[in-house]
């Protein structure tokens, strides 16, 4: 039963690539946004907060369709990017990474924001009196103390990205070798008369990946608590 076929391998590796790229690109943006939401007050903050969480509550097919409208070949952004920068998302694996990144963004930002909020501002003040400019305070005090939360957010975002289905298939379809991830491969297999066994294998693999990600995120959360207590 556990003979994984080349097509299945392709889907697994593509899923990993899509999720890793999505997480790595989303993380710096997520840290910047989490810091803004945790530490700054500005006009439109609650709107921004709602916007970040939107992919969590919208039907994924809606998010995917909006991405298609904006970034498809004829989309207002997509056409411009293709003509001027040669960047195409539609029906490419990069588009799958983008869809996964957008869908996992709220899950990535939340733990980072919470861990930044948990950093004692009095320590940041102390750093200021020692001569650290605000960006130095962020890099030498805030970020290191929030690091376990950042890692937890990355793990959670990665787990979400690797399982994403609705937005991805709407935006970039289900092309084997280009945009067919584990999820869309399972979807195709269970619609094929004798695909059950192969689907079962992929199901087990996705459970293993998701479980490892959750265990890892739990571990990071525990480390965060210990670290903030200074031992």
């Amino acid at each position, binding site marked *: 039963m556990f003979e994984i076929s080349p097509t299945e391998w392709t889907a697994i590796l593509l899923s990993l690539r899509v999720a890793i790229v999505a997480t790595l690109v989303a993380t710096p943006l997520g840290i910047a946004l989490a810091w803004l939401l945790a530490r700054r007050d500005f006009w439109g903050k609650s709107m921004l907060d709602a916007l970040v969480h939107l992919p969590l509550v919208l039907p994924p097919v809606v998010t995917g369709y909006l991405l298609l409208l904006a970034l498809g070949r004829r989309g207002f952004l997509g056409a411009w990017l293709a003509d001027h920068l040669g960047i195409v998302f539609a029906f490419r694996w990069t588009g799958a990474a983008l869809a996964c990144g957008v869908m996992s963004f709220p899950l990535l930002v939340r733990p980072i924001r919470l861990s930044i909020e948990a950093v004692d501002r009095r320590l940041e003040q*102390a750093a200021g*009196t020692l001569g650290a400019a605000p960006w130095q305070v962020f890099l030498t005090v805030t970020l290191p103390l929030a690091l376990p939360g950042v890692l937890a957010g990355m793990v959670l975002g990665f787990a979400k990205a690797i399982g994403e289905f609705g937005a991805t298939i709407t935006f970039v379809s289900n092309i084997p070798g280009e945009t067919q991830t584990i999820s869309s491969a399972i979807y195709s297999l269970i619609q094929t008369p004798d695909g059950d066994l192969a689907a079962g294998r992929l199901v087990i693999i996705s459970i293993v990946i998701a479980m490892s990600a959750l265990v890892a995120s739990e571990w990071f959360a525990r480390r965060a608590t210990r670290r903030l207590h*200074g031992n």
Partner: protein
Amino acid sequence: MLRVDVTKHLGEFTLSAAFTSEGRVTGLFGASGAGKTSLINMIAGLLKPDRGIISLDGETLDDTEARVHVPPYRRRIGYVFQDARLFPHLNVQQNLDYGRRMNHLPDDPAQRSRVTDLLDIGHLMDRRPGKLSGGERQRVALGRALLSKPRLLLLDEPLGSLDEGRKVEILPYLIRLRDEGIPMVYVSHDAAELRQLATQIVMLRRGEVTAFGGVKVLTASPK
């Protein structure tokens, strides 16, 4: 020379203080809630006055009319907090080195060993703050502030979180520090402590300066 003339509204409480201090150790004396911490937070730049002027050695740090507010990290004023505030993710050595690194000062091993000897913290270098006693933490905080080479050192009840035994342990270090010659502003509600350390007293009561002068003004006041 430190010149302070500020007003700050804090809830229903108004802090209004003016004094000029030439002394080596200026003691800010008053009961809790008198506005001592708010006042030195303004000197440090952590709190903006609503109105007034703060200047140090002729350099304006705050001037509300001219809209001047120098941020804390450009003031070169060291601050020893009551709760030490050591960085929990750094060991003692890295904590001590923090100010030097942030100010891009060259490494100065002679100064470092002088400060660590002065405070007897040489044997703690590899420890994390979580593994230090209250007195050790406070000594490291003193060393950390000193090694950032401040022009003025602010101390907010540095003995406040320590029990009697620990206070006796730290006080001699503070006296040594005073004799090093760095100007200090020392906040305390303990007249006995200030009598030993301060050269000049600013007495605060409910947000106002009620007396100013030598340590003798302490004897006139009920504790």
